[in-house]
């Protein structure tokens, strides 16, 4: 029996205001309900994107994120709250819990992992559109390689300080990320959220633009997508759309013209990386079996206080805070030195 306070999953009633918008309509909404989305990264941009798409009623949303929630995330990462920080939840898992309460129609698949060349095809092969919620160009070029190779649309977004940019890539139809930005600035040249700060409003604008691009694609309205590189600065009141369409003809792009996919082949990109200027390093150590937190906690008993839940294990040694995930990955806070982090990993987590 479904009473007035019950939601009937077959019904599209809850989307009535979105269907009323003539460019979507009922047919568009039905398509959105069948749509499958892969979201890479669930921080500032990712939480806003996931929120909009879940409320809009996509069919399936896969959320991949490598990180856990910290207090300084709450200023802008709209799906998280203080309880999530206290519970030491990974972002993907906390987002999934919140999103399921927002809209139980949507199938949410949280994955706590680092998107890399070994797993990206598996994460995106069944998606109708890929959304970029990452915070680095290395992963974006990897997404671009995978999307162009599989012919899947994806939406780039980036934000720092009060400014941000976004573009929509439909392989074979629009320029790809490398047509427009052939290579990323070297480390140190590009500011990060930690060195330049970030305003929640800037993130909400860019992520909302990304999300509506996904809705256009899912509802069958590729004709309506943004074909420009949009740049905004919400502090300086700058809203610009730069024309990039002609680049497809002009540029000898290694990705979409020559079919080279170096990021996908693992030729570029180190998996042990500093994390967006956070005085932290992520150490990746591939293993076939999941790490046993019970065993690791036992091993570290004399060294440090160890806390763990189903999702992660945390301890601090000599001022370095280790957060270890079941896939063997660790985020070590207190250093930007990759070699030092590898050494610490070998010392305390082991091989």
């Amino acid at each position, binding site marked *: 029996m479904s009473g007035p306070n019950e939601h009937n999953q077959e019904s599209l009633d809850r989307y009535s205001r979105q269907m009323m918008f003539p460019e979507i309509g009922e047919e568009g909404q039905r398509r959105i309900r069948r749509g499958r989305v892969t979201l890479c*990264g669930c*921080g*500032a*941009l*990712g939480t806003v994107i996931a929120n909009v798409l879940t409320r809009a009623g996509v069919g399936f949303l896969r959320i991949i994120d490598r990180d856990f929630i910290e207090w300084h995330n709450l200023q802008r990462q709209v799906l998280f709250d203080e309880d999530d920080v206290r519970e030491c939840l990974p972002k993907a898992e906390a987002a999934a819990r919140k999103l399921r309460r927002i809209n139980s129609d949507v199938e949410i698949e949280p994955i706590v992992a680092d998107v890399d060349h070994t797993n990206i095809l598996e994460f995106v092969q069944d998606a109708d559109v890929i959304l*970029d*919620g*990452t*915070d*680095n*160009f290395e992963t974006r070029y990897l997404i671009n390689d995978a999307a162009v190779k599989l012919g899947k649309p994806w939406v780039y*977004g*980036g*934000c*720092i*300080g009060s*400014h*941000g*940019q976004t573009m929509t890539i439909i392989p074979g139809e629009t320029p790809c990320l490398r*047509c*427009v*930005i*052939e*290579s*990323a*600035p*070297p480390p140190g*040249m*590009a*500011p*990060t*959220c930690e060195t*330049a700060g*970030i305003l929640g409003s800037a*993130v909400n604008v*860019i992520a909302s633009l990304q999300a509506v691009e996904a809705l256009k694609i899912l509802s069958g309205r590729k004709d309506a997508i943004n074909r420009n*590189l949009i*740049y905004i*600065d919400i502090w*300086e009141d*700058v809203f*610009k759309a*730069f*024309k*990039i369409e*002609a*680049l497809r003809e*002009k*540029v000898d792009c290694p990705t979409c013209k020559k079919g080279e996919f170096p990021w996908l082949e693992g030729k570029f990109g180190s998996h042990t990386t500093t994390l*967006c200027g956070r005085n932290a390093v992520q150490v990746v150590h591939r293993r076939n079996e999941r790490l046993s937190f019970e065993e690791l906690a036992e091993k570290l008993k004399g060294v440090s206080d160890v806390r763990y839940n189903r999702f992660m294990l945390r301890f601090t040694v000599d001022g370095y805070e280790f957060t270890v995930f079941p896939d063997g990955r660790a985020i070590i806070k207190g250093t930007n030195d990759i070699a030092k982090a590898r050494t610490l990993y070998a010392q305390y987590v082991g091989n």
Partner: protein
Amino acid sequence: MKVTVKLFATLRKYLPPDATGGKAEVELPDGATVRQLVERLGIPQSAARLVMVDGEHCPELDTPLQDGQTVSIFPPVAGG
């Protein structure tokens, strides 16, 4: 010839001292290229990844400029 240059975000610091509102007029020899403008302003080439001339993306730094054009340069935005 004179072109108007607009620098965005972290590139603002390379504007000449007389710039206002994030833009300035720059005097260049006739036929000067985007690269010469970037060098004149002291912007490292690795930072000048996104150049727009009169609102259109200009991927080739050796493109000659014309009097009165507006050149916008901004860095690729990484965070998120």
